[in-house]
């Protein structure tokens, strides 16, 4: 193709196959066309440019080459583009999607977008919006995500989008501050397909991993955490339980499951209505776990943890009985027990102990926030397999000291509503001791630190009467067997699942029955958690196995033992895992007591949500 031909056929002016025509000449032509439009003249070439940009035909190679050349020429002429006069071509460019093009066209388009964003502040927002729109793939991609071709295309597109965002933020340092609100705005709605949300969140976390994350990482975690919480709240406890009892995975409702097991239609209906959300949440959790793990591998978990905790404090801690989202913290702690693990406990304790710091007060009153914090702390100390006994003992000591101080200053009788914090502190101590008593009592120093506990429990406020009876019963049993202090046999507590008093101190929100880190109910997420999790079946209580007539193998698993190495089949393990109770199975002396305690799972498990009350 010669230069003369090029002059007669305008479309060949930007034909990439034309080697006779140099790049600069093409740029010159484009600039002339742009200039003539700016001067108010109609330009044939310009119209053709707009047309080329708007054509969306993946299969036509010639068109692709034309488009490529045009985009390259436009990047060289960005200075000549005017926001008012060249609206058509600009809206054409911003309407383009990388998903529709071949890699070489993508490259040219991305270069053009970067030039536009960096050259004038007027285009910055449009460019950023155009780029992050790619985080939501078009339907044809979503439907064919299993195809290699599509996976490859996804890789091509997203790597370029991330590259472009980074380059823009390098050239325009304030770009991240504009980008973050857009990211929050474009986050797919909660009812979108789970794939869409998962891909979007994957991208968010990838951004967090980049230099943009250093500025906006906190906000990114807030977005992710908020979405997790929203999904979490969308799911009823009943949905999970029903869903899982169908699969025979989670048969915690020992007595109920038997009767309801054959009512399959109800379960499947539930699965249909919210099954998508459960899966979505599960996938999102796993995505976040993967991200945390990669952070840990790159040695930046410590730094990420601060942001993660802030988002936890903002969205999860003050959320009424969140079900799954909190395991993000648990997982982060399990990855780095020495730093994050220790920090998490201390921060929760600080929240519980402090009352003068300004706190987020959006949804709950401060006292329930503090109670929630101590519930998290208790559950965390009890369940974290990775936490050393010395750490648990130190935290317990601080709790015990706090409660002892409270007793010293308080001269009141049992009034659960008035001393909520005290009772929740006591319950936390007892709950942790149910799991850890044996290992703590083994060390004389830790044992001596618990001495004030006796006076607390004997105080007029009488926490033993008020706290959750199942916790108290298990605690007293272990305390007696372990010789923590003399437990009077005459101490009687209500033979009820929950006493009136405990209901009162929990407030209308029933925070007395909230144990956030009860076993995770989502299948995939749980597989990440379970290795570092203390199930009740793994706890070795202080009362000796000789006491138990028919001791089960499960109960023999020691805290530090590796349950996977045990030669149990998966079914057995699942059975053990899914007892969300603090109650040991098959270890009761008489049938009556056994029957009563077998019911406890229903009480301790978080299904004591308002629906069930």
């Amino acid at each position: 193709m010669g230069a003369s031909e090029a002059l007669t056929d305008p479309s060949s002016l930007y034909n990439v196959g034309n080697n006779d025509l140099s790049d600069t000449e093409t740029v010159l032509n484009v600039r002339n066309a742009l200039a003539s439009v700016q001067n108010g003249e109609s330009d044939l070439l310009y119209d053709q440019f707009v047309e080329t940009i708007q054509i969306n035909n993946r299969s036509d190679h010639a068109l692709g080459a034309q488009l490529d050349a045009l985009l390259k020429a436009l990047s060289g002429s960005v200075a000549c583009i005017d926001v008012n006069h060249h609206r058509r071509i600009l809206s054409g460019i911003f309407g383009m999607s990388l998903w529709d093009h071949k890699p070489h066209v993508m490259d040219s388009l991305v270069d053009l977008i970067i030039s536009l964003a960096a050259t004038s502040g007027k285009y910055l927002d449009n460019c950023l919006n155009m780029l992050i729109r790619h985080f939501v793939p078009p339907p044809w991609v979503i439907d064919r995500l299993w195809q290699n071709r599509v996976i490859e295309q996804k890789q091509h597109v997203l790597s370029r989008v991330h590259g472009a965002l980074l380059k823009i933020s390098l050239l325009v340092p304030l770009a991240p501050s504009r980008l973050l609100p857009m990211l929050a705005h474009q986050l797919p709605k909660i009812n979108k397909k789970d794939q869409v949300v998962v891909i979007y969140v994957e991208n968010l976390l990838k951004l967090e991993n980049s230099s943009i994350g250093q500025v906006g990482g906190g906000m990114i975690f807030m977005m992710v955490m908020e979405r997790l919480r929203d999904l979490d709240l969308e799911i009823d406890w009943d949905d999970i339980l029903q869903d899982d009892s169908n699969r025979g995975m989670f048969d915690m409702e020992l007595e109920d499951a038997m009767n309801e097991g054959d009512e399959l239609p109800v379960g499947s209906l539930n699965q249909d209505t919210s099954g998508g959300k459960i899966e979505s949440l599960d996938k999102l959790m796993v995505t976040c776990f993967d991200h945390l793990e990669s952070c840990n591998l790159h040695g930046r978990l410590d730094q990420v943890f601060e942001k993660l905790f802030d988002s936890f404090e903002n969205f999860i801690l003050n959320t009424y009985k969140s079900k799954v989202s909190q395991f993000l913290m648990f997982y982060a702690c399990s990855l780095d027990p020495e730093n994050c693990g220790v920090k998490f406990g201390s921060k929760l304790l600080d929240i519980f102990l402090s009352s003068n710091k300004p706190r987020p007060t959006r949804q709950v009153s401060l006292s329930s926030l503090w109670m929630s914090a101590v519930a998290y702390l208790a559950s965390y100390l009890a369940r974290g397999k990775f936490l050393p006994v010395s750490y648990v003992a130190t935290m317990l000591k601080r709790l015990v000291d706090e409660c002892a101080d409270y007793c010293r200053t308080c001269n009141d009788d049992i009034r659960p509503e008035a001393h909520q914090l005290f009772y929740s502190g006591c319950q936390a101590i007892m709950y942790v001791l149910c799991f850890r008593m044996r290992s703590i009592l083994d060390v004389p120093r830790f044992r001596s630190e618990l001495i004030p506990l006796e006076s607390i429990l004997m105080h007029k406020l009488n926490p033993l009467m008020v706290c959750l009876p199942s916790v108290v019963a298990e605690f007293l049993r272990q305390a007696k067997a372990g010789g923590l202090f003399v437990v009077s046999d005459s101490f009687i507590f209500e033979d009820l699942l929950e006493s009136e008093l405990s209901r009162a101190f929990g407030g209308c929100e029933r925070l007395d029955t909230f144990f956030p880190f009860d076993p995770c109910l989502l299948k995939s997420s749980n597989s990440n958690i379970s290795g570092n999790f203390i199930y009740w079946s793994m706890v070795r209580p202080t009362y000796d196995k000789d006491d138990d007539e028919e001791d089960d193998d499960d109960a023999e698993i020691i805290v530090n033992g590796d349950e996977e190495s045990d030669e149990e089949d998966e079914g057995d393990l699942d059975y053990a895992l899914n007892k969300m109770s603090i109650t040991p199975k098959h270890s009761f002396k008489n049938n009556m007591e056994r029957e009563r305690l077998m019911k406890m799972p229903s009480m301790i498990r978080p299904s004591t949500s308002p629906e069930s009350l």
Partner: protein
Amino acid sequence: MEGLKLTNAELLVYIHPSKSGNKLKAICRELSSLLFQYDEIFDGVLLAFDVTVKSKGAKILAGLNPYFGVKVEASLLLFNPKPNSLVEGKIVKISPETIHVIVLGFSAAVVTDIDIREEFKYRMRNGEDCFVSSSHKRHVLKVGTMLRLQVESFDEEVMHIAGSLLPANTGCVKWLEKQSEEALHMDRDDHKRRKIA
């Protein structure tokens, strides 16, 4: 470097009653929220501030939340590059059509080829993009160079500067200063005479 100015301002900062425990922190927090944003009242982008609380009294705002207004005296460092002023920044990218500069670490500035004077020619040197002056071979602009440019316009919303290298007193800061030093050296007598006069 022009476009920077130091101003004293008397401000009335309204603080939420919950923040009354640590007033100074609350004041700083309020003012920090203005950082790196263009403010018409200040007529510039706030870069730094220093506050002193003058009086102990505070005005309580009537309303649902009894916010209280604290009078403070603040000295503010503002950035407002007016057209035709000279600013300096570091070159972060060079392409045949544009030079991308970051001024003061936060404001993006760009000089497009239309605004680069004829003297500068785009070259590829050792795999590096650069602009070299055709009249002074040592006057080179490449990534990392501190560039002095003239402001054409300033987009306050995104802090974007459109710059120009058309005037002769723009270009590599180091080179320009060396030049002026040499000129100073040569004109010293002349300069002295002018001073006496």
